[in-house]
């Protein structure tokens, strides 16, 4: 009856399939500077600040899309992992979801606040890059830990009430 906006349970599996190559692509790009040559493609841009010339608005440009592809795959993969239904999704799990989302948001923006005040230059830039993904990552970790704790606390008492 209550509509929720979660993906079907099978999307968790799809999330892993998208996330793992996205993570490998992103890490090889960041750590090793890898750029796939076949991803040198013309792209439609809404806005591209000109390096020496004029700023470009709503036009075509050429770009290597390795980092864009990695970013899209990471966000989609993490979102599918975070927001796929559990096998038995109910109001108890919905409350764990809500608490996890709240804590993930606090932690993510706590780190961002710390970064704004105490980190400068490229260090600040790199935290911003990771901050795009960490809110989903923090949520996934907290939600799954909380769920595991609830399952651990479950003490079945089947024997005592069998007829």
């Amino acid at each position, binding site marked *: 009856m209550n509509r929720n906006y979660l993906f079907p349970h099978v999307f968790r599996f799809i999330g892993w399939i998208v996330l793992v190559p996205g993570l490998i692509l992103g890490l090889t790009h960041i750590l090793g500077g890898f750029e796939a040559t076949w991803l040198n493609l013309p792209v439609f841009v809404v806005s591209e600040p000109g390096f020496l010339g004029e700023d470009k608005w709503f036009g075509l440009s050429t770009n290597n899309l390795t980092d864009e592809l990695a970013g899209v795959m990471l966000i989609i993969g993490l979102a599918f992992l975070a927001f796929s239904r*559990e096998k*038995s999704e*109910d*109001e*108890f*799990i919905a*409350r764990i979801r809500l608490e996890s989302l709240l804590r993930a948001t606090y932690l993510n923006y706590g780190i961002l606040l710390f970064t704004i005040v105490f980190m400068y230059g490229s260090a600040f830039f790199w935290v911003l890059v990771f901050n795009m993904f960490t809110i989903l990552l923090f949520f996934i970790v907290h939600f799954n830990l909380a769920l595991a704790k*609830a*399952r651990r*606390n*479950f*003490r*079945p*008492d*089947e024997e*005592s*009430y*069998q*007829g």
Partner: protein
Amino acid sequence: MKNHIRVERARMRITQEELAARVQVSRQAINAIEAGKYNLSTMLALKIAQVFGTTVDALFELEPLDWKP
């Protein structure tokens, strides 16, 4: 909030798992409700009461602590 779900389950001889299936929630949810670790929704309270053939009032009881803001 106190509840008498465990007593009612014993009376009807049904397990947490069976109750969970009948009201369409997880076993963990019933376990957490019984242990007083989760305040359930009105709808779920009504469903559980209906399974036991009783009222929500008879099944759940407010405690003085529940009135603290």
